[in-house]
């Protein structure tokens, strides 16, 4: 390096004075676990892929994303995004629109035809996946990445499970679903449709499979006993939604009553509206606060004119086709109690949306299998009581969402891989959580969240066009850059700039920093001024 003007000093410079000897604590660069990553049921490295999106490298962002989840365009539409609920930025202004950026990346990948990289080597093992819902697709993808030969047997005519036969088109367009399924198949996963597995043991033996992952979902609509006359038109929500995918659309009539308070109830009611019902009324036994459906979906449904009768239960269906409903009150524990006060509701059809049961017929006769409360019990490694048979998604005890199902698929794939290799899989220990207390939020500029546009109400209620739109490139970039990069260095140069002893070495773009322990006095300024909590002080080794 050329010395600046008139500089002669080298000998006799203070560099000879190793002031690092004064230190009792030393700084250490760390990576902490961002709360968003921690909360994602699919185990996505959200901060990791946002980091690439921030610089506009969307393909790299997408590639990091799909290391954990092969369905970003779907996730960006149907995931309830618990990541955003725990996002640190929510404590500053509003959570980062993680889900909208995810959708943007997913759509970008479809638009640009980004493909998965097939495995570099074949393991020679064969794995059967039963069910092409999100859990089965995710397991198949991850198993294939690990080099196994994977066959998915799916009972239905098309892949997707509840994503196709439950979630309505206006929330998840089918071309998006098809594109993400096709990408998994293109990797070399064998998908057999109209191939219902009647008996798992027979199918495994016949196909010479070394292991199986079951993800048959929960498809049997739960019934409630409601006294009804002959003519009453009582349907179940899952069948109604499933029939929406077929040639013959279900006949619901002009006045439709839906019984239940979950997302399925909302989907059916909104679907009924789009099918031409003048009235779609949800009858729910409890209050709005107690409703398990997500607030945003309730909001959208109400906007579309869906009516809700809170604190009401259905007592019977009369011969004339009307419903007798009863007012309820919540007791101290929040349980609905009858009041005896009734009223009559006109309805052309009543749709029950009371939850789903699992059809476990294919497991008949499998030794060691344990079923409790209608779902299959699995160990921590997702294996059922039968060696080599793993299960996940809606058919095992868990929250029933697409993302949880995807997470199960990934987790099971890793354990199946280990099992096939006669080892056990132990996940890397998790980093310490990057809570808001670790951050110095002073450094982040104020930036309100970008809201996704929605199509206008008129079009929402009479077409199946997608309701929520995506972000475009500029606002996706804006949104990605709202991320605080919790717990992980984003190369803001603060540590390098604020050290009074020039004891931070900048290694150059993408290479982060190092401490020069010859001169670091251990003051801790770099730690307290790191915006994202990527440095900590540790005791000097003795």
């Amino acid at each position, binding site marked *: 390096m050329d010395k600046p003007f*008139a500089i002669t*000093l080298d000998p006799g410079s203070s560099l000879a*004075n190793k*002031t690092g000897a004064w230190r009792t604590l030393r700084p250490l660069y760390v990576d902490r676990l961002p709360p968003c990553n921690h909360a994602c049921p699919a185990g996505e490295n959200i901060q990791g892929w946002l980091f690439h999106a921030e610089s506009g490298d969307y393909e790299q962002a997408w590639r990091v994303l799909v290391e954990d989840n092969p369905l970003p365009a779907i996730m960006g539409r149907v995931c309830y995004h618990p990541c955003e609920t725990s996002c640190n930025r929510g404590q500053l202004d509003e959570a980062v629109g993680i889900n909208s950026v995810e959708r943007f990346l997913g759509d970008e990948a479809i638009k640009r035809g980004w493909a998965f990289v097939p495995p570099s080597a074949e393991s020679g093992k064969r794995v059967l996946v039963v069910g092409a819902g999100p859990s089965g697709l995710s397991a198949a993808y991850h198993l294939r990445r690990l080099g196994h030969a994977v066959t998915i047997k799916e009972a239905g005519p098309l892949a997707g499970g509840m994503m196709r036969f439950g979630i309505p088109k206006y929330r998840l367009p089918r071309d998006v679903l098809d594109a993400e399924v096709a990408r998994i198949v293109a990797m070399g996963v064998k998908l057999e449709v109209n191939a219902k597995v009647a008996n798992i043991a027979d199918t495994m033996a016949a196909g010479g499979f070394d292991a199986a992952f079951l993800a048959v979902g929960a498809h049997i609509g739960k019934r409630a006993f409601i006294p009804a006359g002959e003519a009453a038109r009582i349907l179940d929500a899952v069948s109604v939604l499933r029939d929406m995918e077929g040639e013959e659309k279900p006949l619901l009539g002009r006045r439709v009553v839906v019984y239940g308070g979950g997302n399925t109830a909302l989907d059916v009611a909104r679907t009924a509206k789009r099918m031409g019902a003048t009235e779609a009324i949800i009858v729910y036994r409890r209050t709005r606060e107690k409703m398990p459906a997500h607030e945003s979906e309730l909001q959208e449904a109400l906007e579309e004119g869906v009516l809700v009768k809170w604190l009401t239960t259905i007592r019977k269906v009369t011969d004339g086709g009307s419903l007798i409903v009863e007012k309820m009150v919540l007791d101290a524990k929040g349980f609905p109690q009858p009041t005896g006060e009734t009223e009559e509701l006109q309805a052309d059809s009543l749709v029950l949306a009371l939850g789903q049961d699992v059809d476990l017929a294919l497991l008949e006769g499998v030794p060691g299998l344990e079923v409790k409360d209608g779902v299959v019990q699995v160990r921590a490694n997702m294996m059922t009581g039968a060696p080599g048979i793993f299960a996940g998604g809606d058919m095992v005890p868990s929250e029933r969402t697409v993302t949880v199902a995807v997470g199960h698929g990934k987790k099971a794939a890793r354990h199946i891989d280990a099992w096939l290799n006669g080892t056990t899989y132990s996940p890397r220990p998790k980093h310490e959580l990057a809570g808001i207390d670790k951050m110095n939020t002073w450094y982040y500029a104020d930036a309100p969240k970008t809201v996704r546009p929605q199509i206008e109400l008129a079009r929402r209620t009479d077409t199946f066009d997608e309701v929520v739109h995506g972000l475009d490139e500029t606002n996706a970039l*804006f949104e990605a850059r709202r991320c605080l990069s919790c717990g992980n260095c984003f190369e803001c140069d603060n540590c390098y700039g604020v050290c009074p002893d020039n004891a931070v070495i900048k290694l150059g773009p993408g290479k982060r920093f190092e401490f020069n322990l010859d001169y670091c006095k251990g*003051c801790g300024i770099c730690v307290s001024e790191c915006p994202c909590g990527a440095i900590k002080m540790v005791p000097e080794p003795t």
Partner: protein
Amino acid sequence: MDQPQTIKYYQTGTFTVGNRLLSEDQRSVQSGMERTNSLNSGHRACQGCGEALGARYAIDAAMRATGNKVICVNATGCLEVFSTPYPETSWQVPWIHSLFGNAAAVASGVAAAQRALGRDDVRVIAQGGDGGTTDIGFGCLSGMFERNDDVLYICYDNEAYMNTGVQRSSATPPAARTATTPALGPEPGNVFGTGKNVPLIAMAHRIPYVATASVANLRDLEAKVTRAMQIRGARYLHIFVPCPLGWGSASEDTIRLARLAVESGLYPLFEARHGKVTSRTTIRRPVPVTDYLKLQKRFAHLFGKAPDTVRIAQIQRMADQNIADFGLIE
């Protein structure tokens, strides 16, 4: 002017030292791998020294602004003592040590010598602590202003004579405990109603440029040094530099304290040309003065079991007055 307000990288805004997403022209001097490190490692300042930080920021920025043609004249004080125990030096610039009180006069002489040599590219900076500036060197400083000598004088204000054991200076804030204003008696600490505000006195000389800066706002500080080097004549920059030892604060809190001083209104950031205030930095997230005071042992006697609400309120009034006088809140 060249404060990059237009940068909208929301992870950083304009507040961090740099960012991988910034283009070259938006980078601060301190984020550059090629910065001079004018005050190099191995200096003997305390852990977390604000003055060491402020001096590197300022002189590095001056080096970039002048194409590395800077001569520094340094008064006696911490900055000199911790950087140049003979024959060792931390300075990566030509540097002269004068007496405690005459840095401004010596710098005027160096500037005159440059003129005599026909060199107008080499620029002169004088620097010292608040003791050397507001008290002992004040006469020389006023003379330099009055003659409009082509010198930038930088005062690193740590609010006392730190290098000789924390004695009160005329920049020591009221109520602060120092070795000469102990926390004893009916009016503990430094008395109210004394002291000097040298930036305002400098403005009264109507010199071309006066500004205040802080180690908590690096981009602002660099912009002010850069601006000062674009102007000829007498210029004055007053930089707020917390002192962990003298203030009894944690070494990691140096920048936080500087930030709280600004955000509470106790230390207004502004610029003035020819005696008129031309810009000020508004407060972003206002805080009460207690947030600032509580982190320092020199104000500990105001808190404890029976907080001295009268004095705390008096200090709050000073902050409020600054906020009103300089329009620090929009």
